[in-house]
């Protein structure tokens, strides 16, 4: 299918089409002085005219000089909150005369269309697909949500100072894993379809084939993103580098700065750790088994009979970095990092994993 052109004024028609097909739209909106993902009703909810300025430990929402809908990079939220909800009920148990009656929670009825998924985020969804769908066991909660979602990707036309998708081979160009992908030009979007459902939706929209000039403009816009990426993570031999340097002095150095607050793991679109807890009434007759996001940065995360395994910040930071960038490769055949830069921006004390890796490349004294 050739590249198609959607006039900006017709973006709402795409939204209407998806709503008409029963999708609830979630996309970028401005809230709490950031661009966050939330349910949207119309193009009016998009962060038109806003952008983000990011640096290690800092994010600022700022107005843009133009009226771009998607003129920002990535914010504090990722799509995992819809696919792998921060809180989910796994099981309910009710006391009966003969013991317990246990039930799986009902499957969700809603289906979501994600609007504005970036290339690194497509990669992150793929990473979580590997974790939740492609192993020996399938997570029913993730699967029920993932099976039903429709993805409208957007190609980045700019980059933040914290982005390094080019190092991780995940972007900025959306290659696969979407139903539709848009590239924003000043007056229109170039639309690519990446799936049958995407092509079907295209068939119902007033699209025309893009001219070579328009295609070139899109190419140029996307190239700006590539040009804007300044951060780099050297991935050559990274698995062995990290796993053979488990006693490197740098771990103690970063531990002096790291707050072990878990922010990096919360904002990371691929981190998947969770804990299970019991929620009961006072009599304990009705019980819900709930799963919540958790993090390897929490002291109790590795608690077991006999004590806590990772009982200092050093071992916890080491767990995070080595898992993300090294042992993830053993476990899932790919890196756990997609280069989105969130953990750098949202670290309250500006720790930058690319700098930590660079330091680990230096031999210890």
């Amino acid at each position: 299918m050739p590249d198609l052109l959607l006039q900006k004024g017709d973006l709402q028609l795409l939204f209407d089409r998806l709503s008409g097909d029963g999708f609830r739209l979630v996309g970028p909106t401005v809230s709490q002085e950031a661009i966050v993902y939330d349910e949207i009703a119309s193009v009016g909810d998009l962060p038109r005219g806003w952008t983000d300025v990011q640096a290690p430990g800092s994010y600022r929402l700022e107005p843009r000089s133009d009226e771009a809908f998607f003129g920002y990079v990535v914010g504090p939220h990722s799509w995992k909150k819809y696919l792998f909800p921060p809180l989910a009920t796994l099981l309910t148990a009710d006391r009966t005369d003969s013991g317990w009656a246990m039930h799986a929670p009902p499957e969700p009825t809603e289906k979501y269309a994600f609007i504005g998924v970036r290339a690194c985020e497509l990669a992150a969804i793929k990473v979580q697909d590997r974790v939740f769908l492609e192993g020996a066991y399938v997570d029913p909660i993730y699967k029920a949500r993932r099976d039903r979602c429709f993805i409208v990707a957007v190609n980045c036309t700019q980059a933040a100072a914290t982005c390094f998708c080019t190092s991780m081979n995940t972007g900025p160009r959306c290659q696969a894993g979407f139903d539709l992908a848009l590239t924003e030009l000043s007056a229109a979007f170039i639309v690519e379809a990446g799936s049958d459902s995407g092509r079907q939706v295209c068939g119902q929209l007033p699209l025309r084939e893009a001219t070579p000039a328009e295609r070139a403009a899109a190419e140029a816009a996307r190239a700006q993103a590539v040009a804007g990426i300044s951060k780099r993570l050297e991935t050559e031999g990274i698995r062995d580098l990290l796993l053979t340097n488990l006693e490197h002095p740098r771990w103690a150095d970063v531990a002096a700065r790291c707050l072990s607050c878990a922010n990096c793991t919360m904002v990371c679109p691929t981190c998947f750790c969770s804990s299970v807890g019991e929620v009961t009434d006072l009599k304990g007759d009705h019980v819900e088994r709930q799963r919540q996001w958790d993090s390897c940065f929490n002291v109790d995360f590795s608690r077991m009979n006999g004590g806590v395994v990772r009982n200092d910040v050093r071992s916890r930071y080491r767990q995070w970095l080595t898992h993300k960038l090294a042992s993830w490769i053993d476990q899932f055949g790919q890196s756990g990092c997609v280069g989105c830069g969130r953990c750098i921006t949202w670290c309250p004390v500006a720790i930058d994993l690319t700098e930590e890796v660079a330091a680990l490349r230096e031999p210890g004294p």
Partner: protein
Amino acid sequence: MTAPLSPTVGNPWLCHTVRIAAITPEISGVATYDFEFTDPDAANRYQFRPGQFNMLYLPGVGEAAISLSAHPAARRRWSHTIRVAGNVTQALAQLGTGGVLGLRGPFGSSWPIDDCRGRDVILVAGGIGLAPLRPVVYRLLAERSHFGQLTLLHGARSPGGLLYTREHATWNAGGVAVQTTVDRTAADWNGNVGTAVVLLDRLPLPRPENTVLLTCGPDVMMHFTARAALQRGLPASQLWISAERNMQCAVGLCGHCQLGPEFVCQDGPVFRYDRIAPFFRVEGL
């Protein structure tokens, strides 16, 4: 409305319900529980391999990973030997015979019994670590003629911590030489004093290259056991350990049990030593 579940492998969070059929007190704070499935179909389907574990679920209290200590050929009733450690095990200890709880499993890797054929086998167990090795003992006894010299070295903190002592005579008679030792001696104790590693050091090893060692116990104990075995000439590929980590899902989805690149719940708990050694040795990993 949600339909009552028929437990399947489809949703790894679903539980079977099991009833406590019998409780056998072992040592102080430890008892063996025999469970029966309330659903006969589930009972017919259920099988496990020595070394595997179940997640036992007490609604409102939580789940705990517990190894099967049953005979591997068991049908309809499966036993677990459980030490009171915290919330779940405590609440379980308060349930009597007939008590009903949830069970998911079996999960995890198993002891390499097939690799043991034709070889000498040493089992080294520390305290409750003997529980997951008991199914191995049963298998070795059942197929005694397929194995060489069989030894069980069992250590505990004190004489009161030695497990399954009432079975030791049968095991000895059946061809598994049981040696016990304690860290701290007591008035009526005239056996060995010291760790199981001391017993290992003293054990004659006629053909180390043809000996398999399986160990389960506290991390430090397994550590020194592995070191001693290597020094005695056992190849690292013939040492196996069973690791313990915090587990919440038991199916590789929650991240808690990672030990380096391994998920202890699915890649373990039983690991070949040469695979796990680079990580097992690192403190706080």
